[in-house]
């Protein structure tokens, strides 16, 4: 791991909702945990998110949404990553989801979903355990 670069994470807000409390708290916690963090701000389309993720060469996208439009935007982001040969960027999500949507989103390729009440320490541990940098430091 000595040569491994720091994990680079894109925290992104797809959809039109402005509930950014969770995204901003998680972005800060990732930064404090030693990850490199880029935050998109609110109101991003799936196309914008995938394009930023590729440009910024991130290892992980953390999506936050509370509008209910995850059934469209999450699978669309997975589709666009595939189209751009960037399937090796992992994607996780957080926000408000009816329980029955969770298996569908996981089947679409979202690695993990964190619900309201999730602890920052659990999210950080999960990332530390499950995500490795896509390439070594140059």
């Amino acid at each position: 791991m000595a040569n491994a670069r720091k994990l680079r994470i894109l925290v992104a807000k797809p959809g039109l909702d402005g509930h950014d409390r969770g995204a901003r708290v998680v972005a800060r916690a990732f930064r404090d945990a030693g990850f490199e963090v880029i935050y998109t701000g609110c109101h991003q389309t799936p196309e914008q998110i995938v394009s930023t993720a590729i440009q910024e060469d991130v290892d992980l996208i953390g999506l936050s949404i509370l509008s209910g439009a995850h059934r469209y935007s999450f699978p669309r982001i997975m589709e666009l990553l595939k189209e751009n040969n960037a399937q090796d960027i992992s994607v996780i999500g957080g926000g408000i989801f009816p329980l029955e949507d969770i298996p569908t989103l996981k089947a679409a390729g979202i690695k993990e979903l964190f619900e309201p009440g999730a602890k920052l320490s659990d999210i950080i541990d999960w990332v530390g355990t499950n995500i490795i940098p896509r390439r070594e430091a140059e």
Partner: protein
Amino acid sequence: MGKEVHSESALDRVEKEHAEWLEEYRKAVKKVPERTNRFSTVSDLEIKPLYTPLDIQNKDFFEEVGFPGKYPYTRGVQSTMYRARHWTMRMFAGLGNADDTNQRFHYLINHGETGLSTAFDFPTLMGYDTSSPLARGECGKCGVAIDTVEDMGRLFANINLEEVTTSMTINPPASIMWAMYIANAERQGFSRKKLGGTIQNDCLKEFIAQKTLMLPPGPSLRLVTDTVEFGTREVPRWNTISISGYHIREAGATAVQELAFTIYDGITYVEEAIKRGLKVDDFACRLSFFWNSHIDFFEEIAKMRASRRLWARLMKERFGAKDPRSMLMRFHTQTAGCSLTAQEPYNNVIRTTMEGLAAVLGGTQSLHTNSLDEVYMIPSEQAALIALRTQQVIAEETGVTNVIDPLGGSYFVEALTDKMEEEALAYIRKLDELGGMVAAIERDYPQMEIADAAFHFQKQIESGEKTVIGVNKYLSDRPDLEFVLKIDDEIERNQIERTERFKENRDKAAFQKAMDELRRRCEGPPCWDNNVMPALIDAVRAGATEQECCDLYRDVFGTYTDPGSF
């Protein structure tokens, strides 16, 4: 209270006996220690073990507390409060399309709600029609989709708009939705002079917290002032702004930050209207407020009591208002969505009950109580009914409405009310120093104050310093909810088709003429002759969709995007 209600010798005795009691308290906690090192509110305001007349001895009863309906209105804005009429039970509702939401409105009215409150979906809130590529997947999910005046007609079908008051949570496109509401009401034969209700129309808190962003701050304020000016002249029973702390609090602010930033937003709107040439006593009585009622019971009551006193004094002293109605802080309250938990969701009924009770003891004019299922989805009918019944139980069973401001005179509540006011005033001075709210927003000041508070609170949850039952204490496997609302993905296609048909059938020449006039007014200097409202009413009557009007705004005024700081 001070010497006007306690004799000096009585206060001396209190001081002596308080010292004796404190001595005993200290001895006692040596044997059985206090439960925690530091007792504080949910906003992290430190709380002492006991409050006595000493805590409010420097406060004058007549100046600070007084009587309901009398300046500075600490005890309530009306002399009778809930002994004459309960607060308006106004459940925030919006789901699917206009017909679905109309059905929900009738359901709630039939079960005893007394005012309407409209939740729009995100495309509507952001100024996009359902057909916009940016709207994919959002239609009807978080509120009702409204593209046209025809949708507005179906939304309020079979409702007497001169009898019921309607609140609409809409911000950058507020002028357009209000124009649609007025156009529809007049088509139904109602008079605009008799329409009562509220548009949220509080653009400043969008930059600070809610992030429904469209135009830059300057043009946003111009449009808000247009609506204030139009309402003052044409729709006298309408509240043209609901100056909102709710979303500031949900974004993570403390109670004091919610109070201070919201009041300062109010100051800014008053200044803008005065700059337009309006007289403070002509419009201030139609400004209303919107507070969050969070889980810390006394802190919320103190905040609401302090807000009335603070606003009354500002209106009188800073703006020279003469009409007592200009000084009244009339407010709506919603219980705190962010206090609800996905874990053991049935406990949310209990939280909402406590928060609703705090709003009532704080003297609210109207109330929305959250549904227990809002941690998964917007409310199902079953959950919304429990939430409405919660208000009805508070109003009609518990007896708390028999007396006005029952906590007035409580040493603790009065001291906490004073503390809220003092700390809010410190923020207000800071915002004055920064050059006002727009300058502060441009420096990211309120946004980062809130982000800091949100992060601090989250850390307190994780360390166990603050407790959330079912989340960081007493964990269990949660039961599945019996009811979670489903919104059919198909409604998006139907809505797009309906709006397309509507556009095909409109008179193209009349539409173009109305849009040209709207553009002329937007491009002109702000004044009554360029007020957008009359042109908007004509435009939506001629078939302009919400997005067509917003696109015109975006074209003339430019756009604003979230800077994405954290």
